[in-house]
């Protein structure tokens, strides 16, 4: 059996190799697929902190993904139309600068995660799933009715945003940015897991009373994790919007929340490489099977069933021979 560390490095290196190989061969479309996989992996890495480490089954992570997307969309829209954003006394200029957009995306989704977490974490189990779903749907319907930014039709951004020193219009360079964000998020996630907060979060998932009895508030630990989780997924949303140069309410849809959960379960819940492997597999299946049949989700469903029934630790669990944490 393979040590988990090696699986993680292998998965990340594999994704990089695919993108670089495609670049060498001039396969632009494959680079775009790899970029999509990296961004979905980033979003799922965020979810994995809440779901895998904390046992918080959030069916509302699309809220953060969408907020990141709309943070990008709104800032870029005002920049491309040369109209500042008027918020009462406050006037904000739009921007096409990725670092600024990312910072806004992270802050906005972290704030939303804090508010949603504060309310949802009073509950547990199936109620937590329902409340997070409800928050996600609130954002979804709000985006649909927000005609200033395209409403149901969404909001196209004509030119990809810029990053100092990088030509983001070159696919492999934009992949590099997304890949770097993914690696950073994985490092943060690994750090969190081995830090006191990770120890407490892991224990809070298993026995909240135990955590409280040693002087740590289990709710506070989960809230901190939920905020970090939401912020990472929000960043992924901003990147995803930049990949497609398009933002739409679909980024807020509950189907997307569900897909993120599927990615994590496929790859391995609570495992560092889980979201990466899950996202790569998802994008590959979507591309290959999607080319063969419109009903490719049937096959995805069959694979998911197989994993849930026969490989509780997901693909990482199969490779390392160890079942993951019990959620």
């Amino acid at each position, binding site marked *: 059996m393979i040590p988990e560390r090696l699986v993680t490095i292998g998965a990340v290196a594999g994704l990089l190799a695919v993108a670089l190989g495609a670049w060498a061969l001039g396969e632009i479309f494959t680079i775009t697929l790899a970029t999509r996989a990296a961004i979905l992996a980033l979003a799922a890495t965020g979810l994995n902190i809440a779901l895998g480490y904390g046992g918080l089954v959030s069916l509302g992570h699309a809220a953060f993904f969408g907020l990141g997307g709309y943070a990008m969309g709104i800032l870029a829209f005002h920049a491309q139309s040369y109209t500042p954003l008027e918020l009462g006394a406050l006037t904000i200029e739009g921007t096409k600068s990725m670092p600024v957009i990312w910072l806004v995306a992270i802050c906005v989704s972290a704030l939303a995660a804090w508010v949603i977490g504060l309310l949802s974490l009073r509950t547990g189990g199936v109620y937590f799933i329902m409340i997070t779903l409800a928050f996600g749907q609130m954002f979804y319907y709000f985006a649909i009715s927000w005609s200033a930014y395209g409403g149901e039709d969404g909001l196209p951004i004509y030119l990809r945003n810029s990053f100092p020193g990088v030509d983001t219009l070159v696919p492999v360079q934009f992949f590099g940015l997304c890949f770097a964000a993914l690696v950073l998020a994985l490092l943060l996630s690994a*750090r*969190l897991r*081995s*830090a*006191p*907060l*990770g*120890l*407490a979060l*892991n*224990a809070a998932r*298993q*026995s909240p*009373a*135990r*955590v*409280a*009895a*040693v*002087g*740590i*508030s*289990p709710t*506070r*630990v989960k809230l*901190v994790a939920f905020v970090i989780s939401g912020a990472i997924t929000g960043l992924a949303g901003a990147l995803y919007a930049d990949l497609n140069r398009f933002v739409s309410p679909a980024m807020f849809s509950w189907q997307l929340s569900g897909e993120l959960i599927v990615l994590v379960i496929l790859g391995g819940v609570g495992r560092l490489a889980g979201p990466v492997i899950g996202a790569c597999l998802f994008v590959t299946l979507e591309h290959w099977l999607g080319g063969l049949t419109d009903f490719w989700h049937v096959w995805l469903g069959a694979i998911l069933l197989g994993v849930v029934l026969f490989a509780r630790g997901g693909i990482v669990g199969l490779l390392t021979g160890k079942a993951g*944490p*019990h959620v």
Partner: protein
Amino acid sequence: MSDAVLSTHGLRKSFGALLATDGVSLDLRPGEIHAVIGPNGAGKSTLIAQICGSLVPDAGQVRLDGIDVTAASPAQRARRGLARTFQVSALAMEDSVLENVTLGATGRAGGGYGLLRRALGRGDRHDRALAAIDRVGLGGVADMPAAALSHGQRRLLEVAIALSLAPRAFVMDEPMAGLGGEGSADLTLLLDALRTEAPILLVEHDMDAVFALADRISVLVAGRVIASGRVDEVRADRQVRRAYLGDL
């Protein structure tokens, strides 16, 4: 009474028509083991829950080191030095013995939310955790997950975590529950030595252990303390004999 480490004053809690705790005043003084005994349904668990903060009393006070902690959460009380063990082991079952105990040492230091350092490995929290593990005799299984431990070892792990808090007072909810004669005797020896570090409020059904350990006993019946005093006094009390001990 002012030197009591932990005390309750007129605690009262009712569930509907049932008065589960009816004006309970107890205190725990330095260096002692104070046992609380009573038949099933006497309100012992409800009392513990109020002392440890998982249940809010309708009236009355809980004081720790003279400070009113009645409104404090379980986590806040633990940080003030109240270490409890659970009747049914509450452990992070997937985590190792060392991780479970390190969590205790970390929580007491107020560092449970840290992101920048490693939870395990060198440092005084690690040393404190290892010392607590050795103290209860789990040194040989420190790297085993709690789920792989025997029932008796899990009871010891509960005590080790409480110890790692370097507490001002222990509250132990039936630490002997489910232990055989030998395990119970071992734990009795361990608790006997612990009282010098911090006094123990001991809720226990095992009467051999109670009589071997307790400096004082309070008898709880139907939510009220019907007798409280030294072991021989309580043993001789007619009311207690009738209500609880049977004819010894």
